[in-house]
């Protein structure tokens, strides 16, 4: 028993897929709608959420989501290993990256596009270590953080799903991603975000 479990763990370690959900202004509502589709059973990937937030808002988002959902929602601490079926929320005030051994790491270096966490930083790091096992979702936001990161994802064969800017509360962020790429895998309505992502895990 113990044996088969450790094998499974090792195996999932090298095959784990990650959905990286990035957004800013107006993104919480989109995230909520997205998460209404999620259950422990159907989430066969790890979901990592990068939202711009004021520092000091602490883990309110984590508490709120934990109460609303029947999926495990974890606040990210440095060194936490990724597991599928779990939702991870990046803390305000730190950049969030993924190490080669599939543990999450945090960093306090300069803000990028006035943001920490920055979507650019996470998209670059996650795509570096996951290649085509990364599914990036970019939704509503009022600056163009994420556009450079999306280029890295695309170059490394990850999937890119963008919320249709016409539906976004703030369309700069999704529009910037679309403009920065030759080809976006999917531009979809808010309602279709989950279904589209789920095709890949």
């Amino acid at each position, binding site marked *: 028993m113990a044996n088969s479990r450790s094998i499974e763990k090792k195996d999932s370690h090298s095959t784990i897929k990650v959905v990286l959900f990035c957004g800013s202004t107006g993104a919480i509502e989109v995230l909520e709608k997205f998460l209404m589709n999620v259950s422990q059973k159907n989430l066969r990937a790890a979901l990592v959420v990068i939202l711009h937030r004021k520092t000091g808002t602490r883990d309110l988002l984590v508490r709120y989501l934990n109460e609303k959902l029947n999926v495990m929602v974890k606040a990210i601490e*440095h060194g936490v290993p990724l597991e599928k079926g779990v939702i991870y929320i990046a803390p305000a005030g730190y950049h969030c990256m993924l190490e080669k051994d599939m543990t999450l*790491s945090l960093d306090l270096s300069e803000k990028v596009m006035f943001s920490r966490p920055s979507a650019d930083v996470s998209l670059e790091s996650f795509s570096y*270590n996951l290649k085509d096992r990364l599914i990036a979702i970019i939704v509503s936001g009022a600056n163009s953080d994420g556009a450079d*990161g999306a*280029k890295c994802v695309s170059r490394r064969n990850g999937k890119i799903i963008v919320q249709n800017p016409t539906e976004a509360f703030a369309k700069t962020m999704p529009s910037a991603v679309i403009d920065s790429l030759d080809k976006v895998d999917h531009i979809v309505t808010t309602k279709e975000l989950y279904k589209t992502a789920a095709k890949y895990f």
Partner: protein
Amino acid sequence: MEALLEISENELDDFIQLSDKLYGIDFSGYALESLRRRVLRLMQLKSCDSFTAFKYYLANQQLSDEELLNEISVNTTEMFRDFEVFKFLKDEVFSVLETYPRINIWHAGCSTGQEPLSLAILLKEHGLLRRTVQYCTDINSEVLAQAKKGIYELKEMKDYSANYIRSGGAMSLSDYYVANYGKAKMNRELGKNMVFTKHNLINGTSFNQMHMIMCRNVFIYLTTAQQNKVLRLFIDSLVPRGYLILGVKESAVFSTVLNELEIVNGKLKIYRKKR
């Protein structure tokens, strides 16, 4: 930006070896992703469009040792960052520290000194400052020099001030500095009992008889193996029942020395040596 630059794992290894050989700086214990990011940033800053170009740049020693360390390490800090931690120290830990005739506190990785100053202010407000010695160490001598000066941007004081109040500060933060030409110079009294020493946690010696060690936001830059070594160093440096404070997003839970520590506050990462 860095989006178009790329370095492979092997190239990052190369960098680690080069900086050790040519600059005498050992980055081998550092967390890889943030190191990779800092290297990409430095390459971009120096207009090196490939790792080969960057290697050439490094090999010709166009940077001083200090500069390389400065560019790679991250020194971000604030006063009263995570105010709950300071509030907890004031409300729950000071009463224990008070029982010692002389209080030794070690700030490991103190950067430009905002953290020791924050604590100095609270210690002063509780009549403990004069019998406290704060040992402030960092691997980077440039940030230590700034810490010694105690001069900061005035506009930062506004954010600091809100957190000072939320930490339970008794006065107004502006009582502790003099404003001049957009800068804030902290009162000398706060730094009187601070000792600044360059010290590398990775191969450095232990200190003696510390009642409290604060080492926040340094572990995020170290590999798990290094974190364990540094924790060993800390435990050896603490008096029995001494306090250890890590960053709020760091954790000793995965460490090999956990059994020697008691968790005082899991959320705030406040630990205590068992005996």
